[in-house]
């Protein structure tokens, strides 16, 4: 990352084991672009690992900067993502692809672990099954890391192309493969040196930026090759061959040897012996015994699957080599460079340590060359580690590549170092996913990673790394949705973090709201779900979308707030409002529903709505039947005990036109008497100090009483 003042390229906030010496904090620049001096900073955490820093300029200096005409004063808000992918070589889009792609294998493995753990994982048959699952998982993740397409190969192979520039290798993939080789792939345990050789063949270019490598040597030589007429006279030619041979790139060696001038038709006759020697070496190289099941494309040698067969072949091959070395044909070879070059190659194959050391450029290459030619029967991590130490002493490097540290940690069987290297160099994604490989392959790692630690608040290191990764995922709007997969695999604190994450979602965006609710439903987070819906309901209500507000509050089953809304609707009772206003009010009542559990006042509100609706339909020219319906609704409302007393007078006052109906009285004697009794009760209640007077004209009571009295008279006459 450009501009960082430290060597580290990632600000991954991952807790690691304390280093022996007190490490000073790493300093990162915070680019804000503000010209005036800083007055103060203000910080706030957004979702995940995102920190929002407000950088505020000195307020009193504002006017001064104004006069200068500079852009000054004010402030900037800077968003700081505290953890990126962990690797600068991965861009954001590619990182998201990896993040999304690893979800399915991870989730599948977790569910398999879950079902197997029910059957006790320690039983040998289940353990074997588990191995297979982990291998499958590892392969899938591995293929995910190499999704970049290789450039198309030219149809006509260029004989002078010695180095294949295939897909750009990735450190992340290289690290993953190392873990796979050593922890997961049990079948390759017998031929680990050969697997390391393949690994180096794939990833040697990665080291070129940090340390000298054979790969960069070959790339340089290839460029030079175009201008060279007689290659065998160029010392670089022989050096390139020796280097390629030393780390087992036999295909490249064979290709280079074919460029030897003695193969040319015009020279074949005069350089017969020389050519014979070149060919003899080439044949021996192609017959080199290899302790591996099969060869990769473009590689040479003869494969042996069992150790005895391999040892027998190896002895025979070495004998042939020694015989060739002592052959008298060398004396007949006039070409000095060829003679010395070929002899050097034989020395490499005979395992001459100083020649190997000269041919390789860093300890990793030297290490591989020793496997191939000095100690082909090396087995066991301890002896490999000792060999690595020896090679490091022979070829010390000032700034080692991060993968070298990982290799050493693995060979040294030091899980802490492996974890620290993975965490420091490859970031939270690696930690969350590689834990499965480590725990499957090493009992020590399993104990270390699964042990619950009180110092970590009761969680294991495995869980810690998953939590950290989940926090990285939740920092971004495109990846937060996959965090539940990781968090639900954290037994202790995963759900707690998921709840906090869901609570921080901006639920006024309907898509995010629906997604959050779906996650809550999947993981049975009812309290959070209600809370999210409550937030959404309040947001809509306060922003004028009352219907949505009520809907979401109902979804949240927030009786408290719904009751409060119902009470607010009471304010409408007895007020004269426009048709439009009534419609809105009516709609809200409709939404609130009539279920008594929702709100006590709702029964009244529903009845009142019916009454009001029928009353609105009553005009001077309405048939009496219609008006009678309204009158019935009034009586039913007044009879109902749920009708609050404070609404009695407004209801009656609203109904004056019914009470004074011209054509005939709408209420019979008993109904009128009921209403008169209510009116009497109301008059008594008015004497009490807590009585609240309705907001009506002063003569309202008397006009209602008069109307009722008239109605009573007419009703008696009619009956």
């Amino acid at each position, binding site marked *: 990352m450009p501009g960082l003042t430290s060597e580290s390229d990632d600000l991954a906030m991952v807790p690691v084991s304390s280093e022996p010496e007190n490490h000073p*904090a790493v300093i990162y620049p915070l680019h804000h672009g503000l010209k005036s001096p800083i007055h103060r900073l*203000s910080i706030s955490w*957004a979702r995940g690992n995102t920190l929002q820093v407000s950088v505020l300029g000195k307020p009193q200096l504002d006017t001064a900067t104004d006069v200068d005409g500079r852009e000054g004063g004010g402030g900037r808000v800077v968003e700081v993502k505290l953890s990126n992918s962990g690797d600068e070589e991965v861009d954001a889009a590619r990182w998201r692809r990896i993040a999304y792609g690893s979800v399915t294998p991870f989730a599948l493995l977790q569910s398999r672990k879950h079902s197997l753990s029910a059957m006790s994982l320690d039983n040998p048959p289940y353990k074997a099954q588990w191995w297979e699952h982990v291998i499958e998982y590892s392969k899938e993740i591995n293929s995910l890391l190499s999704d970049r397409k290789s450039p198309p190969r030219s149809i006509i192979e260029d004989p002078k192309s010695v180095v294949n520039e295939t897909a750009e290798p990735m450190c992340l993939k290289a690290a993953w493969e190392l873990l796979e080789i050593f922890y997961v792939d049990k079948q390759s345990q017998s031929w680990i040196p050969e697997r390391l050789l393949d690994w180096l063949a794939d990833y040697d270019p990665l080291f070129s930026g940090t340390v000298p490598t054979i790969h960069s040597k070959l790339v340089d030589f290839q460029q030079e090759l175009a201008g060279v007429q007689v290659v065998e006279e160029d010392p670089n030619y022989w050096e390139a061959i020796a280097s390629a041979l030393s780390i087992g790139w036999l295909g490249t060696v064979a290709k280079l040897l074919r460029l030897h001038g003695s193969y040319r038709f015009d020279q074949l006759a005069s350089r017969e012996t020389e050519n014979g020697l070149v060919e003899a070496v080439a044949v021996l190289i192609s017959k080199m015994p290899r302790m591996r099941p099969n060869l990769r494309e473009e590689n040479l040698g003869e494969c042996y699957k069992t150790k005895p067969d391999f040892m027998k072949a190896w002895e025979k091959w070495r004998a042939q080599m020694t015989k060739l070395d002592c052959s008298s044909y060398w004396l007949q070879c006039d070409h000095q460079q060829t003679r010395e070059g070929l002899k050097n190659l034989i020395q490499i194959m005979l395992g001459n340590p100083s020649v190997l050391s000269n041919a390789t450029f860093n300890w990793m290459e030297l290490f591989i060359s020793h496997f191939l030619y000095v100690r082909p029967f090396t087995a066991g991590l301890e002896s490999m580690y000792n060999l690595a130490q020896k090679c490091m002493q022979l070829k010390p490097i000032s700034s080692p590549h991060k993968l070298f540290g990982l290799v050493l940690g693995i060979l040294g069987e030091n899980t802490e170092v492996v974890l620290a290297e993975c965490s420091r160099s490859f970031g939270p994604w690696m930690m969350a996913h590689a834990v499965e490989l480590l725990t499957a392959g090493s009992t020590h790692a399993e104990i270390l990673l699964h042990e619950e630690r009180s110092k970590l608040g009761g969680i294991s290191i495995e869980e810690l790394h998953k939590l950290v990764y989940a926090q990285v995922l939740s920092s971004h709007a495109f990846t937060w949705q996959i965090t539940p997969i990781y968090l639900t695999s954290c037994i202790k604190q995963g759900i707690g973090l998921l709840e906090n994450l869901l609570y921080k979602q901006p639920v006024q965006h309907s898509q995010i709201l629906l997604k959050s609710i779906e996650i809550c439903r999947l993981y049975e987070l009812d309290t959070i779900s209600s809370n999210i819906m409550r937030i959404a309901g309040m947001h809509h209500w306060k922003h004028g979308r009352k219907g949505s507000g009520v809907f979401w509050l109902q979804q949240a089953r927030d009786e408290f707030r719904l009751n409060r809304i119902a009470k607010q609707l009471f304010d409408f009772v007895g007020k004269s409002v426009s048709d439009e206003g009534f419609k809105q009010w009516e709609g809200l009542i409709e939404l609130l529903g009539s279920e008594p559990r929702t709100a006590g006042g709702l029964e009244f509100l529903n009845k009142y709505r019916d009454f009001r609706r029928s009353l609105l339909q009553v005009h001077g020219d309405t048939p009496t039947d219609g008006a009678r319906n309204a009158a019935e609704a009034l009586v039913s409302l007044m009879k109902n005990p749920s009708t609050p007393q404070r609404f009695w007078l407004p209801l009656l006052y609203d109904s004056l036109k019914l009470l004074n109906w011209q054509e005939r009285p709408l209420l019979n004697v008993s109904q009128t008497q009921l209403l008169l009794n209510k009116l009497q009760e109301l008059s008594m209640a008015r004497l009490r100090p807590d009585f609240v007077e309705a907001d009506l004209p002063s003569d309202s009571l008397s006009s209602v009483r008069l109307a009722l009295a008239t109605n009573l008279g007419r009703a008696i006459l009619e009956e």
Partner: protein
Amino acid sequence: MDKPIIHLDKGTTCTAWNYSGQRLAAGSTDGNLSIFDSTDPASSVFSCSSKFKVHESSIVKIIWAPPEYGDAVVCICADGSLLLWEEVVEDSELLQWKLCKCFDRISSQVLDVQFGVSKTSLKLVAAYSDGQVKVFELLDPFELKNWQLQAEFQNVIESVSKFGNVSCQSASIAWNPLKGEIQQSSFVLGFNSDMPQMNSSKVWEFDQDHQRWLPVAELALPADKGDPVSTVAWAPNIGRPYELIAISTSKEIAIWHVGSNPDPGGRLSVEKVATLSTHDSEVWQMEWDMSGMTLATTGSDDVVRLWQSDLNGVWHEQAVLEPTS
């Protein structure tokens, strides 16, 4: 890694993000409040959606109300007044910010306020320059103007009598950031005052049975009890068996573990687990991330420091963000 996302106006004195980190409120010396919004939650493009004058004097601090109560902020102003503003759309009018409540101020100034959510009500704790602590309660979730004074006390453990003539420079309050509704609400409070008994941070919990606030823990070693507290921060708890609280004084930042089960006397067990150097600067703000694993601090040295515990429970300064133009 770092990206400027908002340009703030001249004279901006303070900022505050809402619960989701999608809205920023910025206060300025002339008493104006600006609201910045991002229309798309996936983008970090923000624009000013509202700007309005909340008060005659400079805004010192802004705190967003919990989202369960709508979009509202309280502003503490330089003259010590406390105002609550709310964003509403009323009766098919346009969206607008309205003053809901201007809290009474007699002679003392408001130093800090924080909202706390309980099952049925919203609480607001305010610390004043005369050393008084007031807890207000909102009974109707739709009416942000109707606040009731629930309690008034001083930040002392055993108060036989009330301390008079106290002068406080600053105070800091942090609620237990608990989202569930089971546990009782509590908060931690510390002062920077001329009254040593008042300074040390105490955890206050509401006693339902007796309807009063009780101090259940004191977060200071016996020798440090009088140290003025500059800021406190209560970490989110995603499953730890203890609570984590950071306290900064002029000397240090201390990390405390607070147990969750009270002893027979009603006190919670406390343990100071880390003492972090403030590098001779005053700490003005401390914020925990959402997992409670990383503490970010900032202060008079104008840098952001990030602190974390390692696998052995030892706290370290992990990183420093140093502003550079």
